[in-house]
Each structure stands twice: as C-alpha cells, then as structure tokens.
C-alpha cells in the first residue's frame, strides 16, 4: 500500500521530466511486444534492450533511468514475464536462451521485488492446483473425467503431497550424517529447513496447497488420505514430525482454521495430534485462537472423541498445559453465565459441559489449586443458574458437572450429590469424567453386583444340600415340583389395622384430624374410590374436600402420597367440575401458596379435563374398587371361560356383513363441553397481575411455563365444544403477549398452545373469526422456525406451520387444472 502511494507520487513528479518518460515508453512497448508477439527473435531483442536498465550490460542506461526502472516499472514487467512463462513460449528460441534471459531478470534485478512477484506466482499456482477440478468441471460440463471429480482428485492430491514430503524428508536425511553427528545436529539444522543441505526444500508450496484445499472444504478427502499415512510415518520418526510441524506452520493464517479443524477431526487421538502439530499453538496466534476458542466456544458440532483429542493434545505438553487451564476457566465461565444458559442451544451447553469434564479429567489437583477460588466461584454461579432453569435437561447438566467439578476442584470438601435419573447422556458425561486409562478397566465401569438376597442364598444352599440329605432318588419329584405355578401374590401388602371411613363426609374430618395416622393414611387411600362410588354425597362437600386435599401435607412417610392426593383431587374435580374448578382457579392466583401447590392445581385441572372429555367414561371407570371376593360385573378382567365361549361363538358364526370387529366406544355427550370455560378463562385472565409472593412474569417462569402448557392442553381437550372459538381467540392473544419470552419452556408451551388452537377450533371459524390473529401467529411461527436457538422450539413451530398449511389447503382448495 505504502509502496504504491510512493510510486504514484513519483509518477506525478516524473511527468515533468522528459528523460524519465522514455523509460516508461520503452517498458510499455516491451510489455506490448511480450504480450502480442510470437516471434522469438523479436522477444529476445526486446528483453535484451530492457536488460540495460539492470545495469550489468556493456552499455548500461543512465543511473536515473536505472533507478526509475527499478523503482516503478520492474515489478510490472516481472509480472508480465511470469504471465508468459509456459513451455511453448520458452521453446520459441533454441537452447534455452529465453529461459536464461527470463531467469536473469529475476536474479539480477532488485531481489525484494523479484521475491514478491515469485511468491504471488506460487500462490497462483497453488490456486490452480486446488481449483483444477472446478475449472475442468465448468469447462467440460458432462464430459468431465472421473479422475477429476473432487472425491477422486483430492485423495490423489493427498498422495502427491505425501510424495513431495517424502522427497523433502529423503533429501534432508541425505544431507545429514546420522551416524556421525547424531540427533543434535539434526535438531539444530531443522529450523533452517528451506535451505538445509544446500537443496531448496521449502514446504511452503505444499502448505499453500494444503491450506487452499482445506478452505475449499475438501478436508475429508485430502486429510482422509494424508492423516493416516502421516500418523504412521510420524509415529517413529522425529524427522517426519518436524517436517509435518513445518508443513502446518507454513499454512497461511487465513487457511489455518480449515486445516486445523480438518486435522483435529481426522486425527485418531491426542498423541497423533501432538505428532502432527507439535507446539503449533504456542507459535501461531491464529492456531491458538482456533484451538482454544473457536473449536470450544464458537462451534459445537464436533463429536466427543474429537473433543477428547483436542483437549488431550493441549494437555500432553507442559508448554501447552497453561492453555488448558485457561480454557477450563473460560469454559466454566461460559458454562455458568445465566444468559448463555437461557440463550444457547441445548446441544452447545452439552458440548461445553463435555469439554469441562474432559479438561477436569486431564488436570491434576496441584494445577487446579492455583486457580481454585476462581473456578469455584464460576462453578457455584453456574450451578445456581442451571438449577433455576425450567428445562430438566439443563438442570441435569448442572447437577452432573457440579458433582464432578466440585469433587475435582475441592476434593477435601463434603461431596456434592444430586438426585437425577440415569440415562445414556448422564452415563456418557460421567464416563468422560474418569481419565481415559481408568475407563479401560471394565470392572470399574460395570454395574455394581446386585446384593444377594436371603432368598437366593437359601435356595442355592438348599438345592446344593438337597441331594445328599435325600435318602431316596426322587428326581422325578424334583422335576414335577417346578410345575407349581405361583398364584398372584400382589395382594400381599402390609396389613393396616385401621379402617378407612365409609362415607365421603367422614373423610374431611379424618384428613384434618391428625391423631390417628393410620386412619389418615387409610382414608387417603380409600378416598378416590369413595368419591367415584358416591358422586351425590361428594357434591355436597366437594369444595371443602378440595380445600383439605389442596392443603394436605405429607407428615408421615406414606408411599405414593403425591399420587394419592392428586388422584383424589382429580376425582373431586371430575365429580363436581363447576364448583371445584372455580375454587381451584381462584386459588391459583391467591396469596400464600407454594409454587408446588400452584403447579398441583394446574396438573389437577388438566387431568380432570382429560377425564371429563374422555368418551365413554361412564361405562368403564378407570379406577377399580378394592378387590372383593369374586369377580365384579364389568370388571376389565373377563373370566377365562367367557373368552373361550366368545371365541367359540365367533369361530362358528358366519357373518354376512363384515364391519370392523372391535366396536368403538359408545356415543356419549362430552362432559367437558359445558364446563370447559370454568377451567380455562379464570386461569388466563390474571396472569399479568403480580402478587406479593407470586409473579408469573417475573421470577416464577416455571409456573408460567406450566400454565401455558395447561392452557394448551385445555384448549386441545375442548375440541368439539361450543366454547372452543372464544377460548382459541383468548389463547392466541395470550400467546401474542408472551411470544418473546426468554424461557425456552414457556416458548415451547406457547408453540404447542398455537398448535392446539389450530387443532381444536373448527377451520371455518378460525378463518372467519380470527384471521388477523392467524396471520400474526404465522409470521411469528415462521420467525421462530428459523431463528429460535432451541431445537424443540423450532420443531414445534414447524409443526404448527404445517398445521396452518393443512388448514389453508382444506379451506381454499387448489383451483382445478
């Protein structure tokens, strides 16, 4: 840039000077001749005339002219010369006269400019090599040869690169006397690689080609060939390793990222990466950025083995280990940032968690000690923000990382233990936390041996001791004993001495008095059955009962308490929907309830609505009463004889008409029809009014998410009801108000709510009554489907869009062709 400005300045000055402009004319003429003429003699004489400006001929030009030529015109002229270089051109004159003359310009002129021009030329050549398949493809179209398809060409290029590297290594090996001077000399010589042994073995052209090919996106094809071979070659040879390091070092910065990502993916482990790269990350800023920032924080598509070899590479050398510690610090910071948790896709959070665990597995206690406070601070903040999340997967990530990290960072403290469900993902994460060699022994990773119960020991010992104690050979008896088929023993539960109340009215009293715990528990267990058996009696005390149940607390360790309470509440709501739903919905927005209770209310309303809208529920109550003696009429378990008889009748009977064999449920009025509004509208009206203890739009977004899901479910369940249209309108408005909510769980709820509106409201009414809302929703959905960071949200949005599409197709049939 600066050079250019200078030259322009000189050009302006030189216009006044007639002597200097002759130089310009001569050069221009010569360039013209070179580019147009095919006559060897003419070219030779033109070049010869220019030679005098270099000053080493018998009649050199004036010093000013020489100076001007060197400063302004030389590089232009050299570029022209490079452009002409081709075998045909060189053979215009015999005996290589042209070649000699051509070369003399580069050798005798100012070296800096010659070098620059040559570098440009090399780069151009590299582009040509890499771009060859594209050029051929463009030119030949369908007549292209299979060998020039990229998938065939680049492996070939890899082979050729390898050949070239072989030549480099061989020439180096020849130039160094291993026997005598040994490795020390070699080490000293290698930094001077390009001129070692007097031979020109620069690898920068190879690096250029490698870089270009990787930038072209051909890492897989090229490195798929190169890396396995280089792995084998570098494994045993220091020389090969040095050549490889040099090769990667000389890759231009702009191609560094492509090359490194390709290498990291293709390398089979941290050792391989170490052989191939050496301490590249310490030498090249760009490489360091790619390895410690880009691959860890900006991308998250790499698999766990890739992550392992990347971080393992950082851990393998003492010079690189500070980078690993730095990376861990930054990873933990990112992991703990609450805005990242809210906005980053789950897959990325998962990736970062994995990286943290791998880092921790590599770092020793001593190294962690130095920055313990810093790490602990970001860890604690991170655990807090993870546990605040409304997505179970995020919470679980927080728990696992916290457990492992706290054990590593603060081993002397009390161990942190969370309760979470084990699945594929947690096992994978926990396996990462153990260092690689330890994970190899299967005995440690295997599941703990199940404790031997008294029964099994008993059985073993008896059966082993049996034969010797038996006087008679009774093998047949032993065999026949195995045919004793056990009866159903599920009724063998713990005996409760206290009797449950027989009337619903007594249950209220039994549940509120707390002296007799056994009676209290028996009441809770019997309540659901009692309610379904005596609906009229339940309706008299329904609200009272709902109130007692809502405030019921588990004071003794009753197994399945939550489920019992919930089922009883659902039963009360189903039996007397209007009053209980009114009570529950007002309590949802009342003061002094815990979040748990509020969410219970939502769950109960959903379950009750589901039960009410279930067709044919009168015929088959889902709950069975306590088992009594003898089969009950209409109980789901039909006796075996009945099945046999029916089967026999069916096989002997000929049916004239063949309908569907299984009859659908009997037609029955939808009980939810008349009460859906009582469930829905009180819930949707007050969401934006914060209470002292309860702020849906503030901290209590978990409840808000649950509320949105509940509203969506209620909407879905009120399909075919009269009230569906106003409900849909209200729900779409509600969705519109919350559409930019930051919490993923809430957004998921909103999206499924839109889907349930589309499913439940009749299509004609949708278009007639809610066209504006639909259009708004559509644009929002399209936006979410493209831009939302959460994958589930995007999927839900696409589903809703598809529903919308289907709806449109139904209403506006395509014009007949």
């Amino acid at each position: 840039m600066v050079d250019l400005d200078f030259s322009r300045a000189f050009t302006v000055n030189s216009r006044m000077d007639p002597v200097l402009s002759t130089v310009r004319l001569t050069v221009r003429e010569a360039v013209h001749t070179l580019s147009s003429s095919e006559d060897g003699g003419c070219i030779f004489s033109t070049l010869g005339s220019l030679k005098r400006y270099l000053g080493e001929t018998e009649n050199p030009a004036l010093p000013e002219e020489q100076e001007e030529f060197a400063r302004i015109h030389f590089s232009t002229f050299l570029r022209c010369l490079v452009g002409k270089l081709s075998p045909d051109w060189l053979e215009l004159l015999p005996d290589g006269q042209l070649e000699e003359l051509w070369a003399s310009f580069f050798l005798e002129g100012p070296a800096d400019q010659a070098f620059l021009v040559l570098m440009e030329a090399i780069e151009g050549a590299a582009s040509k090599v890499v771009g060859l398949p594209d050029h051929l493809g463009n030119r030949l179209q369908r007549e292209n040869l299979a060998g020039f398809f990229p998938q065939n060409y680049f492996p070939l290029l890899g082979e050729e690169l390898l050949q070239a590297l072989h030549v480099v290594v061989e020439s180096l090996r020849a130039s160094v006397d291993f026997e005598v001077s040994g490795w020390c000399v070699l080490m000293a010589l290698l930094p001077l690689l390009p001129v070692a042994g007097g031979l020109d073995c620069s690898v920068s052209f190879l690096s250029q080609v490698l870089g270009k090919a990787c930038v072209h996106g051909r890492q897989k094809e090229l490195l798929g060939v190169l890396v396995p071979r280089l792995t084998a070659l570098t494994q045993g040879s220091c020389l090969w390793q040095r050549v490889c390091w040099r090769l990667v070092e000389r890759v231009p910065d702009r191609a560094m990222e492509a090359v490194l990502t390709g290498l990291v993916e293709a390398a089979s482990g941290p050792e391989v990466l170490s052989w191939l790269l050496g301490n590249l990350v310490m030498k090249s800023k760009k490489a360091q950025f790619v390895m410690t920032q880009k691959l860890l924080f900006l991308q998250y598509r790499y698999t766990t083995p890739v992550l392992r070899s990347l971080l393992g590479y950082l851990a393998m050398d003492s010079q690189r280990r500070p980078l690993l510690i730095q990376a861990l610090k930054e990873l933990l910071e990112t992991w703990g940032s609450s805005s990242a948790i809210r906005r980053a896709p789950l897959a990325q959070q998962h990736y970062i968690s994995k990286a943290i665990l791998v880092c921790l597995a590599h770092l020793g206690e001593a190294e962690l000690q130095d920055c313990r406070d810093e790490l602990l601070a970001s860890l604690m903040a991170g655990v807090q923000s993870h546990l605040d999340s409304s997505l179970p997967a995020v919470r679980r990530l927080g728990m696992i990382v916290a457990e492992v990290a706290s054990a590593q960072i603060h081993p002397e403290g009390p161990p942190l233990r969370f309760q979470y469900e084990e699945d594929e993902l947690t096992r994978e994460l926990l396996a990462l936390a153990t260092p690689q060699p330890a994970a190899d022994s299967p005995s440690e990773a295997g599941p703990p041996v199940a404790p031997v119960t008294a029964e099994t020991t008993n059985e073993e010992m008896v059966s082993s001791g049996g034969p010797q104690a038996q006087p008679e050979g009774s093998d047949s008896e032993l065999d026949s004993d195995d045919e004793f088929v056990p009866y159903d023993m599920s009724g063998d539960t713990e005996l409760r001495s206290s009797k449950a109340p027989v009337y619903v009215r007594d249950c209220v009293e039994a549940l509120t008095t707390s002296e007799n715990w056994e009676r209290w528990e028996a009441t809770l267990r019997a309540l659901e059955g009692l309610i379904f058996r005596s609906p009229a009696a339940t309706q008299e005390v329904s609200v009272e009962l709902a109130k007692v149940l809502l405030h019921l607390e588990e004071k003794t360790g009753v197994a399945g308490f939550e489920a019992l309470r919930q089922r009883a509440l659902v039963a009360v709501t189903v039996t007397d929907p209007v009053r209980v739903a009114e009570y529950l919905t007002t309590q949802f927005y009342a003061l002094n309830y815990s979040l748990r209770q509020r969410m219970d209310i939502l769950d109960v309303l959903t379950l009750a609505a589901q039960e009410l809208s279930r067709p044919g529920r009168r015929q088959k109550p889902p709950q069975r009463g306590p088992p009594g003696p003898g089969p009950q009429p209409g109980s789901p378990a039909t006796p075996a004889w009945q099945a046999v008889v029916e089967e026999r009748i069916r096989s002997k009977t000929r049916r004239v008409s063949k309908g569907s064999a299984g009859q659908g449920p009997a037609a029955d009025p939808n009980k939810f029809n008349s009460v859906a509004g009582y469930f829905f509208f009180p819930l949707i009206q007050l969401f934006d009014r914060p209470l002292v203890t309860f702020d849906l739009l503030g901290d209590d977004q978990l409840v808000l998410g649950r509320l949105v899901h509940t509203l969506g479910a209620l909407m879905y369940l009120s399909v075919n009801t009269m009230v569906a249209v106003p409900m849909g309108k209200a729900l779409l408005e509600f969705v519109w108000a919350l559409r930019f909510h930051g919490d993923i769980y809430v957004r998921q709820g909103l999206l499924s709510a839109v889907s349930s509106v589309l499913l439940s409201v009749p299509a004609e009414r949708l278009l007639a009554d809610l066209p504006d809302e639909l259009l708004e929703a559509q644009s929002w959905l399209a936006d979410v489907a493209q831009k939302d960071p959460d994958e589930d949200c995007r999927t839900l949005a696409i589903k809703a869009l598809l529903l919308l599409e289907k709806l449109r197709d139904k209403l506006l049939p395509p014009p007949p062709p």
Partner: protein
Amino acid sequence: MPLAPGTSHTSDFAGRSWSEAWTEGRDTPGDCIPPSMVAPPSPPPPPPDPQFVLRGARSAVHALHFCGGAQGQGHPLLLSGSLHGLVHIWSLQTRRVLATLDGHAGKCVTWLQTLPPGPQLLSQGRDLRMHVWDLAEGRNAIVDSVCLESVGFCRGSVLACGPQRWMLAMPGKGGDEVQILEMPSKTSVCSLKPEAEARPGMPMCLQLWQADSSPLPLLLAGYEDGSVALWDVSARKVCSRVACHEEPVMGLDFDSQKARGVSGSAEKALAVWSLDEQRALQVHGTHQLTNPGVADVRIRPDHRLLATAGWDHRIRVFHWRTMKPLAVLAFHSAAVHCLAFATDGLLAAGSGDQRISVWSLYPRM
C-alpha cells in the same frame, strides 16, 4: 379320594395345559426369538378360593387336627379346638359338626392329636389338663387325663413307641422344663431341663421324632429366646442349639426325610434350618415376610409344600424345597392361629374370626 375335585383343581390343570401350549408354540422351528424377547409371561392366576369353609365354632379356633377315617366311619374327620374350651368334630363329607366335646371347663383348647391305636383323642387345654378321649363307636368320653404343670402356650407332641405305647412331650414345671411321659401308663420318663447358663426361657413348641437310622427318640424344642434346640431324650441332653429368631419361636415343623426344619416367630421372618449327621443344627437362611407374626408352620406330609399361619390374617404357601412363595391366601379377617394338613394334602386353617377354611392346593399327582 372321597373328595370331589374342587375349583382350584380345574384351574390348576387349565393353567398347566396352557403353559405347555405356550412353550410348544415358542419352540416351533423357524421361530428364533431369544427367550428374553418373547412376549412377557402371562399374569399369574388369581389367588384361589377355599374349597369350603366350616362355620359354627362360635369362638376363635386354636387347634386343628385331621383324623383319617380309615378305621372309623370311612370319611375323614376334622377336629377343632376353640377358645371357649369346646372340641368340634367335623365331617368333611357333610361339612357339619358330628359331635362337640366339652371337657376343658371353658378354657382354650390348644392342641388336639389322635393317638395311634384306635380312635382315641388327646386334647390339651389351658385349664392345665390333658384329656384322653375315647371316640370309638360314637362314644365321646374322657378315659384318662394328665395334669399339666405349665400354663404356657406350648403344645405337646407324641411319638409312637410300640403297638400300644407312645411317648408324650409336654411343657413341664419350672417354666423352662419339658416333661416326657410314657403313655398310657403316665410314667414320667424324664424331665429335660436346659443348662442353667443357657437361659432359653419357656419352651414354646415341641416336636418329637425319630431318625430313620436309629430308634432313639429326639425332641426339637423352640424356646422363648428364639432358639431351637435338639434334645436327645434318652441321654437327656441338648445335642445342638441354634438361635433362629430374635423373638419367641411360635411354631416349628421338621422334615425328617430332608433333615430340614422351619420355624416361625413373632417377627417378620421364617427361619429354615437343617440337621447334619453329627446332629448339629445350622440355620440355612431366613425368608422375609410382609407382615410380622407367624402362629404356626406346617409341612405337607408329602414334604412338598409349607404353609404358615400369619397374624396378618393370611395363610402363606411355599414350595418347601426351594422356599419359593406360591400363594398368599387372604380369606380370614382375623389372625390365623393354627394349621393342619391331611394325609391326602388338604389344608385346614383356623382363625380368630371363628371360621375354619379348607383348601386344596397343588393336589398330588
């Protein structure tokens, strides 16, 4: 067999044929699904109902005994002893009471046993009497009686020693002794008193038996401290003693063929123990129950089933060799106090709800 096959007979056969069919179906060639992936096993059959129920004891039933009807009326009889001192004799054919014996002054009858020679009955009551009844030819008179010196819960045990002689073990005086009498002469053979330092407490249950190899009578006794002791009666010393339970042993039974025994106590577990050639008792293992309290344990005469009477109103049935639970019979509404097996495999259970249930489970093939 005089009894008509009951409902549980048929359901059992149906179940077997079904399972056979299932197995065959699974093994058809070309069907190479690994066993673990075959359709889940069918649900187990529902628990059986009693074959019949005897009502009319008018108080809790504390003792039961089957009496083979071979010599008598030709039909087996069931004898029951009640809380209020009555002994009822039930016909298993008509399922009615044939006779009622009242000889224990309204005190609970705890043990009933017919004697090897002829239709004589031995009944033990908590009025400190043990009566011998003559039941032959419709008579029901007390022909002899023995005074007990302990008012505990311990039931007696008898062992035939000869054609007209038998040995009777019963709780003795002093709270921890077992008295051995020779009957019908009522001469005291010996009194088995545990060593002073052992302190096992009262004997809770007794069983006299004889090994096949030697004619010497042996006595198994369960004690208040939860231990079971094997006495050599003729040598009057303890051969072996093993602690099986934390709570008093409430009932025990011994299978001399397999040299294995089982005991139940007030706690939630059954103990299975065995006897080796050196007459040493060893606990093999315990079997956990759902609810605590076992009033009685009985092994079926063919040594294939074990039944236990639970304070939790339930009768539990186990496969005796493997101790695999087979059934939990929840029929009674009060604690089950006593069990008895007939020689043909019929099981009777007497309960505090004043009923006697009779079951036919896994009939012999």
